[in-house]
């Protein structure tokens, strides 16, 4: 029920963002339609819901994410990201104690739309799709689990400095998102399938972004 409510809220925000945008576009410093790109680096922490394989098997630590936004100002944009997160393996009944270390790299793509709220503050909605890999051990004894990650979130974007050297804005980013993970490629017995293949996750991010004008 909570999941559905969150999903509905995210979709509503996403759908209504263009309406806000029409009201507030006068405050934007960048002319509408100007192409910008914005590389950024974020610290992230993602937690998987308990009661799923990902939630019960791994103790999550901090991670990072590198991303680049591409947009024509005032219109929805597109971005790509790559990130990874530290994790440890908890006692479990699936991995047989075969592995000591695990890595969780993820890469993906997202659509976003950014709306100014105050002069230096804007909010953006994001809808993302990524491929998460859970990599246990080292080659040739690696064991990899692949998950598709669908997510939606809200990010606040605070402009720390405008037109630095006349070429970029420096922004502070803080936000969060909620995601669904689907590992339908994973082969496992019927009784454990849903537990292993499905998970939900909450993620918080904090970072900086350089928006080239």
């Amino acid at each position, binding site marked *: 029920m909570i999941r559905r409510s969150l999903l509905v809220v995210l979709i509503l925000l996403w759908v209504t963002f263009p309406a806000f945008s029409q009201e507030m576009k006068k405050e934007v410093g960048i002319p509408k339609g100007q192409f910008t790109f914005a590389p950024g680096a974020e610290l992230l922490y993602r937690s998987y819901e308990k009661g799923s394989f990902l939630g019960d098997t791994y103790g999550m630590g901090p991670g990072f994410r590198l991303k680049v936004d591409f947009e024509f100002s005032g219109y929805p944009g597109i971005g790509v990201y790559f990130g990874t997160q530290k994790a440890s393996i908890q006692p479990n009944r699936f*991995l*047989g*104690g075969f592995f000591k270390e695990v890595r969780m790299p993820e890469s993906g793509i997202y659509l976003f739309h950014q709306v100014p709220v105050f002069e230096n503050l804007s909010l953006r909605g994001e809808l993302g799709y990524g491929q998460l890999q859970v990599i246990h051990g080292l080659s*040739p004894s690696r064991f990899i689990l692949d998950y598709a990650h669908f997510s939606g979130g809200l990010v606040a974007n605070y402009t720390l400095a405008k037109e630095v050297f006349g070429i970029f804005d420096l922004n502070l980013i803080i936000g969060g998102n909620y995601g669904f993970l689907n590992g339908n*490629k994973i*082969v*496992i*017995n019927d009784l*454990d399938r849903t537990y292993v293949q499905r998970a939900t996750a909450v993620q918080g991010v904090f970072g900086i972004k350089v928006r080239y004008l």
Partner: protein
Amino acid sequence: MTKKPIDLLYGLPFRFIGLVVLLLSLSGCQEFIHNSFDTFTGKIVDVEGKPVADLELILTQDLDFGVAQPPVAKSIIYSIKTTNRGEFRMVVPARTNISFNTEYFLLLSSPVQFELEESGMSVLYRYYSFSTADRAADGTINLGTLKIVRQ
């Protein structure tokens, strides 16, 4: 004697081919099947065919066959108990058939033994060995009904 530049160049393609072959060999020798788990299932019954509940079973790949003593697990993958219906289920990452490590042992820790059929005769073993070669499409390896004898 210093090598001519042309001699050095001759070695480059071979080094590149060697590197490619090495990488291919490493990728071909993967120990585990990605995105795949094996599940070992079965049922433990007594000599009368009744399910044996709460029987401790040890899954291992590393048995020490000592002289004049029961085999001992040098490392334990799982230690579980059978359900009220005598059933058990254990899940591990699936190993490739070329990993040379596809043999598992189910070891009894209680003073009981498996009664197995060998050449038409009943033989008692403290362990039951099996391989993961014949897995079903969902990774299940059904060990069937295993009979135990209490000593």
